[in-house]
């Protein structure tokens, strides 16, 4: 079937196409409610990024997160009755909020003063009730003056302000918490003397969501309106504007619906996606309508359907080309980006572009054939008379420049390119999350207000690890910590730091009658332990839970910075890492840098490389596609030149205006390539086509400018104004992004209109002059057939996929090979047969519990394993049975049956969905089948190291205090990942008995999925047996606890128990 027949079929069966088109839209729209939002900074890091993983560990150890920081600022001194009472009131109110850790609030009202007394230490709050007299406030002030630790951190050094820091429990709910705090603060009755500011990473993440939403709500309709106006001006018909909007709608819904269907959240940067889609999706409609109306102008008697067929036959190839090249650009971004939001952005924009293409070539002609819109008489007259409107005249003017000043144009372009290359080397990479917000925003002002008065709202944590419990009771270790703090405070932009050492020094001084000479670390190890003991008699041992862990094995140093930009903190992080590498990390003590600033460092440091590699990949892919489609690598180069030049021009502008390359702007290159190359493709394609007819480049250009050039101009207007809308965005990076993409696209257009024709005139390349013509009117490209283009598209995707393959970590050479470890685990003898009772306790996220009791039998028949399980209670499901035959051959699916007592029948069930959850539990069918073993067929394993389990987990699950081998599992291919539902796993393996005692699982998008804990592991009849399994599902908040009892490997189990008929007999007695 050739293209003409295809489009003819469409116009002959429009209703089917339209119905199918709407069905697809509605189907994808049905996924939209599932779309979730993720504005966390952590979303920018892949879940397995070591920095993020470690930060989460620290969170667990110390309960530290990205806190909300509330500053109470007075005109002169905060130590007034109202000032202190306001602090108290806020502290108490915040403690009541659901998502705030009541033990994680630090304020003057919550913290304790440490003073010496006759008996020892007195640990008392600075104040614990409302202040009624100024003398009380003065007492607090004096106490703070004696407590250097809090100066700069809790109280401004000029005593004009104080901070309340609140640790958040659940990052996902931080937006709601931020709004609650805002409203609580607004309800306070304050005088003019006091101001309240809310800042901190918690506030930033909290506000970001609603800030960006408000922005999007304004921008998207605005972009849509502008596009609609442009289309109307171009064609003077309402129906064309409606159709353009329909294509946009389809593109947007399919894209966002796909995101929702795949569980990809809406990230901060995804806000730019709809605007981009609006610009791109409309381009195809413009070209098709342009061709259609031109045809109608010259053939008014022709049946409208035939005109539609003609227009589509002419335009489908260039439209497809530009879709492929645009998609190539975005797939380049997908390939090179290491941050999930960018990967998602690249991939789903490519999907959106493809959706627009699909609807432009199917739905659009279908509707056009029904509407049979006539060309507006004014437009028709203009076209027929070859009269040029102002737009065509403008294009002709560009043509005039190109043709008459050929060499000048080329020379200037070379100059621009050279300057651009120079500028590229000067581009700065920088990112500061607060700069997302406009300087007028309250949050921005709050951030500045706090950072100018205090040690800072930007945190870096350094975790000190000692090898054993109470390892911190060592003057040597504490002295190292102190030295590290001193060193850190000497670096910019560090303003202060807090660690357990500061508290110890305070205690030491307090116990030595407040003599400043004793503001030092206690001289003896025993003394350190005694001080803590003494402290605990006067106060709660929880007071230091943010500085040390329960066993005094780990300590945290929190370093405060008053600047958060990458450029300002990069050197600090590197210097600290260098210090730590030399001064720590030996047998007695190790230190690891973590915290928000460190996370940002890791996040941004590869940005520059990623940006340039992404751009390189996008350019390569575009060149490849263009070359293949034009059958000429030179043509591919020509297609690239305008867009590459425009990017270099943008770099020059960024250097000149000091716009850094950051999160918001890094994407611009791939986007600009994807959008800008369309002009070059259309230009080359149409010039070639006209040349075939005119046999003269000049004549071809004469035809080109008023027709295709005019259409391209409207194309440009649509895109440039669409992006121009972003200039009005309040989200600063989006603002920058919009501006530079608009500049890139405009310059790409200009270079396509001026430079390309100039080069063609000058060099007369073969791909314009030397191609054989085909029978089709616009058949420059040999690739008439859809299959070829499909292959090309697939090649594109394959290339992108290849480029995203990850390298695996080398691992410690002392560690055993991961797959070998897996083999040891699988080789554990689990007995020829086994009977056990199993109690299952299912707890949903609201705490509701359901219990089930089962009995199960398992027996090996050679290598084939058969298992049968019967429910014994509750009565409603008693006698429900599940039988499975687990075959050793990989290619043979297991056979499974489910007996339902209500039906009195055993039903065959499909075993191909191994990743489905087993009978309402959080274990999958595969998990149940494996019984603690690993699937080497589906996963490859790597040993990552050795790690101990936390005290809490050891206590809860009765595990030994030792190190376990950490084994990482990754699916061997996407099919395995999709089928099993796991994108990654981590297992803690006891090398003494090769039992996995703990597991963590991530879903296919590498979001944390569930944790597994194994407890009560002991031998029964000589076989190591797990008696307790707990699975926590992070996505659903559901928990499953399996308890195995009366495990018996000796009691004979009859073969005939494992048959379908036996299932129907119910629980064997």
């Amino acid at each position: 079937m050739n293209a003409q027949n295809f489009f003819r079929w469409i116009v002959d069966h429009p209703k089917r196409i339209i119905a199918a088109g709407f069905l697809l839209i509605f189907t994808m729209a049905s996924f939209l409610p599932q779309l979730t939002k993720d504005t966390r900074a952590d979303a920018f890091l892949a879940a397995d990024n070591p920095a993020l993983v470690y930060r989460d560990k620290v969170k667990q150890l110390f309960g530290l997160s990205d806190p909300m920081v509330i500053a109470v600022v007075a005109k002169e001194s905060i130590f007034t009755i109202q000032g202190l009472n306001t602090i108290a009131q806020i502290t108490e109110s915040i403690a009541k909020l659901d998502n705030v850790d009541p033990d994680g609030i630090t304020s003057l009202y919550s913290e304790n003063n440490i003073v010496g007394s006759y008996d020892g230490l007195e640990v008392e709050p600075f104040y614990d009730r409302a202040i009624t007299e100024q003398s009380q406030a003065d007492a607090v002030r004096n106490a703070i003056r004696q407590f250097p630790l809090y100066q700069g951190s809790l109280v401004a050094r000029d005593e004009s302000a104080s901070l309340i820091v609140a640790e958040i429990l659940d990052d996902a709910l931080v937006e709601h918490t931020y709004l609650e705090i805002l409203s609580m603060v607004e309800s306070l009755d304050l005088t003019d003397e006091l101001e309240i500011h809310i800042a901190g990473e918690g506030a930033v993440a909290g506000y970001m969501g609603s800030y960006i939403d408000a922005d999007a709500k304004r921008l998207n309709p605005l972009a849509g309106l502008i596009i609609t106006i442009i289309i109307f001006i171009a064609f003077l018909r309402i129906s064309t504007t409606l159709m353009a909007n329909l294509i946009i709608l389809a593109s947007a819904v399919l894209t966002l619906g796909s995101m929702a269907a795949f569980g990809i959240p809406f990230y901060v940067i995804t806000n730019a996606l709809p605007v981009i889609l609006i610009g791109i999706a409309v381009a195809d409609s413009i070209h098709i309508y342009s061709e259609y109306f031109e045809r109608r102008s010259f053939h008014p008697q022709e049946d409208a359907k035939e005109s539609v067929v003609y227009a589509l036959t002419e335009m489908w190839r260039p439209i497809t080309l530009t879709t492929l090249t645009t998609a190539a650009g975005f797939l380049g971004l997908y390939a090179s980006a290491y941050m999930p939001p960018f990967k998602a952005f690249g991939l789903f924009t490519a999907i959106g572009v493809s959706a627009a293409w699909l609807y432009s070539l199917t739905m659009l002609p279908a509707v056009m054939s029904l509407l049979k819109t006539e060309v507006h008489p004014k437009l028709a007259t203009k076209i027929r008379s070859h009269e040029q409107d102002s737009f065509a005249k403008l294009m002709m003017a560009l043509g005039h420049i190109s043709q008459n000043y050929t060499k000048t144009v080329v020379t200037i372009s070379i100059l621009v390119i050279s300057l651009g290359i120079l500028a590229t080397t000067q581009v700065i990479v920088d990112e500061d999350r607060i700069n997302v917000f406009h300087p007028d925003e309250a949050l921005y002002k709050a951030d500045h207000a706090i950072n100018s008065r205090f040690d800072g709202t930007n945190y870096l944590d350094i975790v000190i690890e000692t090898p054993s419990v109470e390892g911190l009771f060592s003057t040597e270790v504490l002295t190292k910590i102190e030295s590290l703090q001193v060193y850190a405070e000497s670096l910019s932009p560090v303003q202060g730091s807090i660690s357990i050492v500061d508290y110890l020094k305070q205690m030491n001084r307090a116990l030595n009658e407040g003599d400043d000479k004793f503001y030092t670390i206690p001289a003896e190890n025993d003394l350190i332990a005694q001080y803590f003991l003494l402290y605990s008699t006067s106060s709660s041992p929880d007071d230091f839970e943010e500085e040390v862990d329960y066993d005094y094995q780990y300590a945290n140093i929190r370093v405060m910075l008053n600047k958060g930009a990458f450029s300002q903190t990069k050197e600090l992080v590197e210097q600290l890492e260098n210090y730590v590498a030399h001064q720590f990390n030996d047998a007695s003590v190790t230190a690891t840098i973590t915290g928000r600033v460190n996370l940002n460092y890791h996040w941004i440091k590869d940005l520059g490389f990623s940006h340039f590699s992404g751009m390189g990949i996008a350019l390569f892919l575009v060149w490849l596609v263009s070359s293949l489609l034009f059958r000429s690598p030179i043509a591919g180069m020509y297609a690239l030149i305008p867009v590459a030049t425009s990017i270099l021009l943008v770099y020059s502008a960024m250097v000149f205006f000091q716009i850094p390359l950051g999160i918001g702007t890094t994407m611009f290159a791939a986007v600009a390539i994807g959008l800008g190359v369309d002009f070059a493709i259309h230009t080359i394609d149409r010039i070639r086509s006209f040349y075939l007819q005119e046999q003269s480049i000049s004549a071809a250009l004469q035809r080109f400018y008023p027709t295709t050039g005019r259409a391209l101009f409207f194309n440009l207007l649509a895109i440039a104004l669409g992006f121009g809308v972003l200039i009005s965005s309040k989200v600063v990076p989006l603002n920058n992004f919009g501006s530079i993409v608009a500049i890139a696209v405009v310059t790409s257009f200009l270079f396509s209109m001026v430079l390309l024709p100039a080069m063609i005139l000058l060099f007369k390349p073969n791909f314009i002059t030397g191609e054989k013509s085909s029978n089709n009117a616009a058949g420059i490209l040999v690739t008439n057939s859809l299959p070829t283009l499909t292959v090309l598209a697939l090649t594109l995707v394959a290339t992108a996929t290849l480029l995203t393959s990850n390298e695996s970590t080398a691992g410690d050479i002392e560690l055993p090979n991961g797959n070998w470890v897996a083999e040891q685990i699988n080789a554990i003898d689990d007995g020829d047969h086994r009977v056990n009772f199993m109690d299952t306790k299912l707890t949903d996220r609201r705490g509701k519990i359901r219990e089930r009791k089962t009995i199960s039998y398992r027996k090996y028949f050679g290598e084939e394993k058969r298992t049968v399980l019967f429910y014994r209670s509750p009565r409603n499901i008693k006698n429900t049975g599940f039988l499975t035959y687990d075959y050793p051959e990989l290619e043979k699916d297991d056979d499974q049956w489910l007996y339902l007592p209500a039906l009195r029948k055993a039903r065959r069930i499909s075993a191909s969905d191994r990743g489905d959850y087993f009978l309402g539990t959080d274990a999958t069918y595969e998990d149940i089948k494996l019984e603690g073993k690993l699937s080497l067929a589906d996963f490859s394993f790597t040993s990552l190291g050795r790690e101990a389990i936390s005290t809490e987990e050891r206590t809860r699950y009765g595990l030994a205090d030792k190190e376990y081998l950490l084994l990482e599992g990754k699916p061997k291919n996407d099919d395995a990942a999709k089928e099993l539902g796991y994108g990654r796993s981590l297992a803690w393996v006891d090398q003494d008995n090769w039992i996995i005692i703990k597991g963590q699982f991530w879903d296919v998008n590498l979001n944390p999925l569930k944790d597994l804990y194994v407890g009560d592991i002991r031998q029964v009849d000589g076989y190591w047996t797990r008696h307790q399994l707990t699975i926590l599902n992070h996505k659903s908040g559901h928990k499953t606890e399996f308890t195995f009892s009366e495990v018996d490997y000796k009691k004979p189990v009859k073969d005939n128990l494992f048959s379908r008929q036996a299932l129907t007999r119910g629980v064997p007695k």
Partner: protein
Amino acid sequence: MKSIALSSSLILLTILTSSASLAEEGMSFFDRYAENFSAILKQQTAYATHSSAHSTSHSSHSKKNQWQQNEWQLDLEYSEAIDAGIFSGDIMAIARGRFDSQDELEDESGNTLRVREMYWQSYGENSFWRIGKQQVVWGEADGLKLLDVINPQDFREFILDDFDDSRIPLWMVNAQINTSDSGILQLLLIPDTSTHTLAGSNSTYQFTSPMIVPNITAESLSALGISELVSHKEKNAKSGDTGLRYSDFISLQDSSWDITLNYLHHYIDSPVVSSTINNDQLIIDFQYEASHLIGGSASTVLGDISLRTEIAYETDRYQRSENTLKGINVVIPSIVKGDLLSSVIGLDFQGLSDHFISMQWYRQTLLLNEDKLQQAIADRDEDRLTLLWETKFLNETLTTRWQHIHGVNHGDGVLRPKVTYNWQSNIDIYLGADYFYGKTEDFFGQFNKTDRIVAGFSIGL
């Protein structure tokens, strides 16, 4: 009454013989026996959504109220392992009490208290025996009965009741012998001649379709000069049934099949209704006729789809027909005898997580000569399609179910949406509806005025 007495004695005997040992063990009666008892309490309330009842041409039954049912059903189960030499095994008894305060279903059984099931079972080395009152289910079809004809059914609620509840257990010997690793031969000897329990006259689910019950109009009677209707009802079938089934699991290279071959000699559980004229009397005979059933089933899994097939060939089946009496232009109900071939193909799709989608195509073919076919009321080929879609949410605590049975020939059918929530471990609550459509003379359409909303719960104890 007899069964209650028998079962009570058996239970008492068991308890007494073991009570002696209790004293020695120092356990109380309750401690010892609590684990042997379990119960399930079900409640269902149904609200009819049509204002007029399912009224028949014979009755001027007008509807009193909308509430159709407020039924409480308690099944008390007792099970005990017994150690008695060759009689070692387990005994099981289920007693059922049912009470419906609305009583709109007005069936013969009404409010009941009876032993539902009671049997002794034992595993031999290569055999399994279950002797007593029990249910045996054959076949692969869901919601349709081809091979599942061993136990008769209680039609007080048509097919709306769970089959497990509506199936009538029979006294029988059920022996299963392993013929190989996977092959089992089952023998059924069923002396119990109980038959279907039909919904009573003037009850909501009384059969009125002429496809099932004869339709005798007053005009016909008058034209024939009939002044009296006489019924001869045979209470039960004459003698018991015998069944044989071979089942096996065949594992091939790329697939595996569950297959059965079935034979049943039985008396059809619904009576054959024929009529004869004797002077001015129309004598209506209700007879239970015997039939041979030969059939089989097979099921396998192909990827995400389970395939189920079932076929049954029945001899000596009687179909409702209409005859015109010679010389008199009056149609009287009659019967024709022939064989019946039924088959079902079912596909269960489990490719979507938490969804179960099942479709079945059922065909019944009357094997009658042309003449008899003309007379038969039913079509030669009767097709039905069924759709079941179950979706589970919230770790399988919430289940939505959509069941649709559609008769292709006449465009009638029934829709049964239902939502069930497992509120506690042992408590399920549900809400559903039953909606019939089609013409009143059709199988499902005859109940098109009995649409209802149902709600209920079950508690396991």
